[in-house]
């Protein structure tokens, strides 16, 4: 394949670097190197998206050819499907519980690790590990066992199994996500280390205590990082699937209490064989995530502080 074409190019490159090559030629090389990814994006992302958009206007049961039905799927979703609205409410509840909890925990641990002198590497890895493991099905199954009737939590707290109680099951799912706070924690940690020590010294000279320093120095200086984490985790939370799937054994139960949006989407597509309906749901989710992100960006103007703004 391209292996024969690229080496001569590459061999010449260092020598030619000082002289500026014509723009065209450099662009050509860039495209050659990009091609696997561009192809991947087209074949694996754009094409399936286009197909899914088409399917969302059809009745498609996986087995027979899709039948064009116009906006019927969308209409049915909004007007005749109580379970759809239940899944929307469940997902919003989940986002509101999981995201703030996860970010708070990530920030607290990042603050604790920042001041630590020894064993920092160890603790950082230890707290990060769940994020690597957490996405896997096996951990989610362990979670189910822990919170099940007669499981560890039941034995310790005598609360009965959380995953069997409609009022508690969603919390068990949220906790699984909260526990995977490693990624935002590492980003917080990086952000904290960027804050110049002089600011704290200046604040201390002015007589600010720890709490005051946190509110007046740490929070504003960290706000871009906080915003970044908030956007990222919110988008992820809207798409939660694995923990809800595993904890409810693929059913969104008990009594639909863990039937988050993507679970219901999966149910419509793969259990009930309504791929058209599932595709329509996917597009609505995409739009909603887009809107929520836009709203977050808009509100960010009033609370996110960029150090460079001082120059303006």
């Amino acid at each position, binding site marked *: 394949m391209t292996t024969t074409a690229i*080496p001569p190019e590459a061999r010449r490159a260092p020598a030619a670097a000082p002289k500026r090559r014509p723009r065209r030629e450099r662009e050509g090389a860039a495209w050659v190197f990009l091609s696997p990814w561009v192809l991947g994006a087209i074949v694996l992302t754009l094409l399936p998206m286009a197909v899914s958009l088409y399917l969302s206007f059809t009745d498609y*049961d996986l*087995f027979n050819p899709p039948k064009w039905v116009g906006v019927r799927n969308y209409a049915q979703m909004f007007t005749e499907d109580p379970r759809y609205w239940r899944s929307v409410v469940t997902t919003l509840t989940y986002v509101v519980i999981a995201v703030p909890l996860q970010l708070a925990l990530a920030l607290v641990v990042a603050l604790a690790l920042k001041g630590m002198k020894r064993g920092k590497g160890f603790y950082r890895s230890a707290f990060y590990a769940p994020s690597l493991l957490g996405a896997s099905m096996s951990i989610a199954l362990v979670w189910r066992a822990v919170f099940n009737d007669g499981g560890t939590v039941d034995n310790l707290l005598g609360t009965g199994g959380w995953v*069997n*109680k*409609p009022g508690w099951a969603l919390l068990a799912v949220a906790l699984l996500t909260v526990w995977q706070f490693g990624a935002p924690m590492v980003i917080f940690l990086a952000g904290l280390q960027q804050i110049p020590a002089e600011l704290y010294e200046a604040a201390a000279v002015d007589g600010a205590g720890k709490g005051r320093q946190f509110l007046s120095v740490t929070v504003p200086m960290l706000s871009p990082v906080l915003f970044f984490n908030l956007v990222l985790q919110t988008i992820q939370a809207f798409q939660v699937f694995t923990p809800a799937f595993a904890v409810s054994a693929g059913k969104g*139960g*008990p*009594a639909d209490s863990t039937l988050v949006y993507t679970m219901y989407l999966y149910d419509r597509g*793969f259990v009930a064989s309504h791929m058209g309906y599932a595709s329509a749901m996917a597009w609505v989710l995409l739009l909603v995530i887009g809107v929520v992100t836009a709203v977050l960006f808009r509100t960010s103007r009033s609370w996110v502080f960029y150090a460079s703004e001082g120059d303006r």
Partner: protein
Amino acid sequence: MPGHRTKGFCASAAALALCAVLAGCGGSGESAGGGKVVLRYTWWGNPDRAERTERAVALFEKQHPNVDVTTSFSGYDAYKQKLATQAAGGDAPDVMQLDYRQIDQYASGGVLLDLAEQKPVLRTGEIDPGLLATGRVDDVQYAIPQGRGTETVAYDVQAWKKSGVPLPGKSWTWSRWADTMRALAKKTGKPGATDPGQSEDAFEVWLRGQGKALYTKDGGLGFTAGDLTRWWTFTDTLRREGAVSPAEQTTQLDGSVENTPLGRGTAVTDANWDAPASGFIALVPTGVALAPMPSGEDGTPGQYFKPSMFLGVSADTGHPKEAAQLVDFVINDREAATILGASRGIPVNETIRAGIGPQLKDFDKTIADFQASLEGTLKDPPQAPPSGDNALQSTFQRDYDQVSYARMSPREAAENYVTEAKAELRS
């Protein structure tokens, strides 16, 4: 330069690895090394069924040295979803176990092979014509029934005997059944039965006991929201009294016997199909026996003999002949029948049924005797359910969840279900 050589080497290694990966993704029925034909055979069931199937498959491989069979199984719910996805992706296993509810959808979707094409290697002469016809859609034989099953009340013999409550007789009505469950719960301190409210199958038996059916001849809904309200009110009351399993246990049902209250040792009985009931043996070491399902108040039986499950061959298989040979082996081979016993219901091949009947041992014999005791007393089975039923089975369970967690009244849930069912059957 050495650095450059390394880069070139890496690139070709990567290319090689990619080729290997792509080659590994070949479709089903590819020939593996050694020129052997590889068949994929999947089914749902419990470990007992798996163990026997593995032994039968080993025997088939011995008889057909050119064929290698790879098998896989899972619980019913997971199996249903996985198979649908595979079939839609054109990657259905060569030989697959199918449920009555799947035949219509899979046949009309072009997933299944017309088995008449394989007549020379797949003999059907010894199967009861009526039973064989259940695997036919639009006069094409898409699947072969594997066994005959019926619903049953499986019970923990020792727990029941110890309670002092009289053992179930030859027939009982739903109201006598309910009284017995109350008495069992009182004496044993644990629920008498799995809450049958979540089971579309149990509802069907109850409905048939009143001369009605789940579906009409033309595939519409055969009952009203009022019927379902009465059923769910009946089971909801029993649950509130503690006569049947609480919501927390009922919601964990997933089609496997391991997750039933009887399997977990938290109830005395469980309404189930007779073939999977063999899985209780391992879970209830003190012994399991079978009783008939309750009948209507005037004695009308609701349960029926149903083709327990089918075998179908993928329309896309690369080796239709070998796949058909495997189906033939499972259904018509005497030795295979001895190994498989009644793990998929009583064999459909009449000669084999007559031949191995007396040799059946242990629980297989229990199942055979149970079926014999019902012979001639049951009504005809309903026709194969319409495609939409496949999804409705889980909808039924979810809607009842709302009742058992007291989030909806039986009437609200029933109306919900009927609305959903009508939409599902229309599309």
